[in-house]
Structure formats: C-alpha cells, structure tokens
C-alpha cells in the first residue's frame, strides 16, 4: 500500500489546511488516480498518523514542502 501520494493544485489555497475535503490524488508507485475524502495538513504534527502528500502545481512544478494526508473515504471517479 502506497504511503506517499501526490495531488495537483492551482494554488495552495485549493487545499483546506486541517479540514476534510475531497480531492483527486495519485499514488507514487503506479501513478493510479483516486478520488478521496481526506484530511490534509501542512503540518505533520497536526496529523501525525497521516501519509505524505506531495503537491504539484497545474503545470507540474513541485511545491517545495510536503503536506500530510489522512484518507477517510474513497469516492467514485468521474467515469465510475
């Protein structure tokens, strides 16, 4: 099970720090897409049991800091 994920954002404001939100992520083993409900945080201390979340901007540039993600549920992809 992958413990590192990645998501794409237009700006960091797309991520609701400390709140549960819906987002599209991909694992970094196979790059498979998942839509999930998850709590995300910019601080590992605030979400100690979370997995690593890498962030990329819409043209692929990677944000210098990782966030943390705790997946709370799976959601159907748009084509499901």
């Amino acid at each position, binding site marked *: 099970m992958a413990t590192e994920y990645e998501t794409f954002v237009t700006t960091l404001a797309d991520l609701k720090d400390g709140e549960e939100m819906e987002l599209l992520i991909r694992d970094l083993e196979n790059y498979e897409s998942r839509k999930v409900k998850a709590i995300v945080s910019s601080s590992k201390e605030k979400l100690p049991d979370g997995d690593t979340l890498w962030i990329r901007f819409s043209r*692929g540039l990677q944000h210098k800091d990782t966030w943390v993600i705790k997946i709370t549920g799976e959601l159907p992809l748009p084509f499901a």
Partner: protein
Amino acid sequence: MAFKDLREFIDKLEAEGELVRIKQEVDWNLEAGAIIRKCEETMDGPAPLFEKFKGYPEGYRLLGDPFSSGIKKFAIAAGLPLNMSHQDTYRALMDLWDEGLANMIKPRIVSTGPCKENILKGDEVNLYKLPALMLHDGDGGRYIGSLHTTVAKDPDSDWVNWGCYRQMIHNKNHLGGFVAPAQDMASIFGKFEVENKPMPFATAIGTDPIITAVSVSALPFGVSEADVAGGIRKEPIDLVKCETNDLYVPATAEVVLEGHVLPNVRMDEGPFGEYTGYRASPRAPRIVYRIDCITYRNDPILTAVVEGIPITTSHSACAITWAAGIRKALRDEGLPIIDVNIEPQAGLFIAVISTKTPYPGIAHRIASVAWGCKSGQFVPKLMVVDDDISPYNMNEVIHAFGSKCHPVRGTHTVPYAAGNPLIPYQNLEERLWAKGCRVLYDCTWPVDWPREIAVPPRSAFNSIYPKAIQEKVLANWKNYGFKK
C-alpha cells in the same frame, strides 16, 4: 518495398547504425524517459530500444522516439537513398507524401494478424501490465500513448480518422487525453457526444513507420490516413477487425487498445511536456477513454516520444507532412512558389516559403493560403523569401530576414486567429481558449522598387562576380593552397 511491421523497421535501423539495444534493466519511472530525451537532444544519434524494464517480464520492450534527430530515419523508413543532401531528402519525402495523397490505396481486410496473439478482455484488462512510461517529471501520469495511431470513425460517412492524441493512464482500464478543438477527432467525437453516445476507438501502438508518420500528419478533412499510407507504401495496409467494436486496426501492430470515449465525462489530465518544448497547458478536465480490450503480440514493443525541445518524431514528421501540405495547397492555387520548409528545430512555429514575385502583395496571398489550409493552421509564423534563397539554408534565411524584412512594412500581424492551447508565448487566457495570432515576415524585395536604383545587388560570391571570375577562382581553389 515497405516494412511490414515495426520489427522489420527496427532491424533496418540497427543495420544502419541507427539503433541501440539497451539490455540493462531500466526503470519505466523517468529513467527511460530521460534516456529518450537525451537521445532526442543529440540531434544525430540512434534510437534506444529498451529490452528490460524494472518490474516487468523479459520481452516487454519499448522503442524510444524512432524518428528523432532529423530526417535520416525517415529516409530509411521511406526507402530513400541515404546519400542525398538534407534539402533533397526533404524534397523527396514531400514528393512521396504528394504521391501517396494522389494515388491512395485502400486497406486490405485480413481475418487475423499478429496483434491478436494475446487478448485481454473484461476483468483481465489492465493497462499496468504494459510498461507505459512516466515520461517527464511532473507529468500528470504514465503515458501509454505518445506515439501511436488512434482510430475513430465519422458516424456520418465512411471516413476513418487516424491520429496521434496523447493518452495518459488514469487506472487499469481508463485513459485520459488531450485533443485540440481543431483536430479531427474532436469533431468526430462531438457528433457522438451531442447524442450522449460513447465513441468507439482503438489505439494501435508500434506499427510500421509509414503508419506512424501519417497518423501524426494533418490530412484534409475526410481523407483517411490508411488510404494515404497505402499510397505511400505502394501497397495496402493490412487491417484486422477489433474484438469489441467495429473498427479496424493495423494487423501487425504491437499493441491495440480497444474501447470507447465516454460522452460528457471529463477528468483531470496532464500536464504533459509537449512538442512546443514547454509544459504550457495546465492539468485540466479532458476526455476519458474506457478500455474494453487489449490485444498484443508476443514480446510486445511499445513506442514512446518524450516531447520537448526539438527534435522529436513530432517535429520531424509534422515538418515534412505539414510543409508538403502547404506546398500542395499553394501549388493548387497556381502560386509561383519554389520551396516550403518547416525547420524542425523551430518547433513547428515557423514555415519558410520561397517564391517568385510577379506582382505586389504576393506574400500576403501565400500567407492566406498557407494559413487557410489544414497543414498550415498550427504554424503561426511565416517567412516568405525570394527565389534566390533556399528555405532549407538557415544561414540564407536568417540573413534574408535580417536584411530584407522591413521591421514595419515587412511585418504583418494577424492579431486574432484560431490558435493552439499548447503555444508557450500566449498568455493564460489565450491558451485557455486556444486563441491565436499570426505574423507574416515578408522578406522579398518590393516589386514596385525600380530594379536598377532601389534593389541592392546581393554581395555574394555567386552573384557579385562575373561568371568567368567565379569559374577561374573555383578551378584554382586548391592551387591557391586551400584544401577544400
């Protein structure tokens, strides 16, 4: 004699020293992409054939950008002599293109073919069984389709379109993809989507090189690439019916993905390092392909292009076929053009057209026709030069541009035009809406300038000296002490 499949072409590339077999295990995650990119940037290097991928069985192979680094590999694909000049090779390839279009040969339907050696349907469908590459760091996903033929049929006619539209893996049986609004598959899919019907498609990966080239090209609306490929090959393409829809695919393809493009469904796709040399277009909601079946040859060979700065297959294939299309459109209009060149190094942004200038304003007429034809729609910058300039000689072209194009009177902008969302210099709003603009650089001497007093004589060896002096100097060149 045309190649019957990709494997014959690979053998020929190897025999000509244009292929390197990489037997060492390579990671599909960026490492292979970086190797291909490095090859593409060497400009004259061989293509890599990867023979072992990390996490995949022996025999699952991938050919990296078979037409990068200029046109020699195209000449091999077309069966041309390899000792011709750059200019003559280009002209010969464009002539072959014209011949294929003028003498189309319909495909031949066969009952089966090597692409049916393995068939995965239903729950067996799993795109991750194939070593699709993570091509660039920061791409939206693994792209199984970066150099291939996607087949779609117009629902209102017999027209079957073959195109190369990038395809990214979402999960084991879905792909996402980008199709520009002005591309053929967008218009075909639009007819299905308006009725909320899925559009059957098939993607053939790893075909004979002529099929690859025509799939990347821009043919007139309604012309089937398969017929033109047959015309170029001078023999029909063998096609075999798909397992799960009514489309036909090249029987010798290495891998075939069958399925449907889902109507009124979009999912984030990209970003992707594109042929423009930049990742200009953002991740955005785009069409979704559902895969119903995968067929493939034993020991399949995928193909991949790592788009980016020139020269990739996209640059060389489009340079040749777009230039041929523009040349044909201009000739069909009776315009006295000499040559058309789209130099791959310019990333398909610039076409240079040489012409006679029998009347004022001919550069504008040339530009109107070039931009009005399908092959010229994505070339935003045109340079029109006099007939004493070779469009293939960049020293001459850049000198003509610098010395003959008046910064005001010779530069003609078209501020509003249909565009391309991938073009890097456009602002975000222009990219979002594919709004374009164009410019014509008229590098011809004005026809209304009196020849004797206004047109400066060209100070070049072959124009500023009497013929007798030129011949004397050339005849004595080595006697003067020069070695060549």
